[in-house]
């Protein structure tokens, strides 16, 4: 997925909005596949973000006095 600007939070919200729409049965039949696909994409995006992030603690060098 090429959503460079997408944040985890935005992706998660979009995913949950899709679920909401689907669960209310409001989606158009023609959209169904696209929505499911998008949902799966968003899930993978979020999942990758979590898996790819390796915890890291950096100490910033002190400025020259």
């Amino acid at each position: 997925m090429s959503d460079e600007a997408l944040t985890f939070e935005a992706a998660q919200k979009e995913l949950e909005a899709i679920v909401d729409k689907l669960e209310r049965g409001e989606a158009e039949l023609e959209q169904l596949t696209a929505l499911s696909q998008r949902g799966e994409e968003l899930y993978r995006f979020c999942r990758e973000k979590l898996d790819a992030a390796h915890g890291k603690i950096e100490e910033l060098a002190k400025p020259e006095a």
Partner: protein
Amino acid sequence: MKVEPILYGDRKVYTVPAFSRGVAMWLGRLPPIWIEGEVTELRRNTAWARVFLTLKDPESGATLRVTMRRDRFDALELELEDGERVHVHGRAELYEARGELSFRAHTIERFGLGAHLAALERLKKKLAAEGLFAPERKRPLPFLPRRIGLVTGTEAAAKQDVLTTVTTRFPPARIVVAETPVQGARAAAGIVEALVRVSGLPEVDVIILTRGGGSFEDLLPFSDETVVRAVASCPVPVVSAVGHEQDVPLCDLAADVRASTPTAAGRLVVPDLAEVLQRLERARAGVERGARRTLETQEQRLVRAHDRLRRAPALAVERKHARLEATAGRLRALSPRATLGRGYAIVRARDAILRSAAAVSTGERVEVELADGGFGAVVE
């Protein structure tokens, strides 16, 4: 003693006491002033005419020898202890025998928390008037910061509390730590500088500013105007966790969120990974379930539509029938039969209704129609 140089040819040379005298005289022309500092090395001896103490600047550590007449000192009844902050009024003088600068005190006043508190209160009012603490300025914290800035002292506790909490709750967290002096003269400038540097780093979405507990004075840099302004103008949200629960340094008021402890601050900046994963998996399952539900809903809709479609022709005929009946009813109400019922008759000749007596001639055959039937007749 006069300050007279010795002349060696055209070179003027002063003796040590003459030099000191000259400096002492010059110092003597300076006006009396107030000096603020911390009392250290207070020495009072009834055998001495003077009391000695060293006035120390708590931030830079710079010191100044202070002397005071013992009778004056005793009259103040201050019972000063080492470490107390004071204001000393007097003037500079030179201890000529050693060429050392000292400060001759006329009076000493204890400089207590009251003055600090008053100054702090004034600053708080001023900054509040500018709107720096206004609730509408507060920004929400990011749900999942890409990087977390941590501005903290070199002392381990607060820093370690934040790091432990954040990494336990959310192991993938990325944290960048900027250490800075958090008390003393260079603290305020150091904190401001660290805030600016960390907030300027790429992907830093939130900053924690923290320091463990300390005395009122230890926490003063966190109420420094430059620090408060730096927190308020920080381009990313700031969580402030300074001192203990009951301490409210001004930077806490300017921060977007105030945390009671470094641990609480750590909990605020990252979500619980387990919860995030659970929520994500739930959503994923929801996509499938939702898609199925959508299909079912659409199918039901289709079935209902089809059902209505099938019933539609019969329904339409029924409606038309009913409408026909209604029309017939109205037609009947208007028909001449009702009039005939009241005793009138319609007379036709040559299949046309007779409207004038002149239209028939004697011997012509006509048809007479009554309510219940008709008969033929001949005109006479």
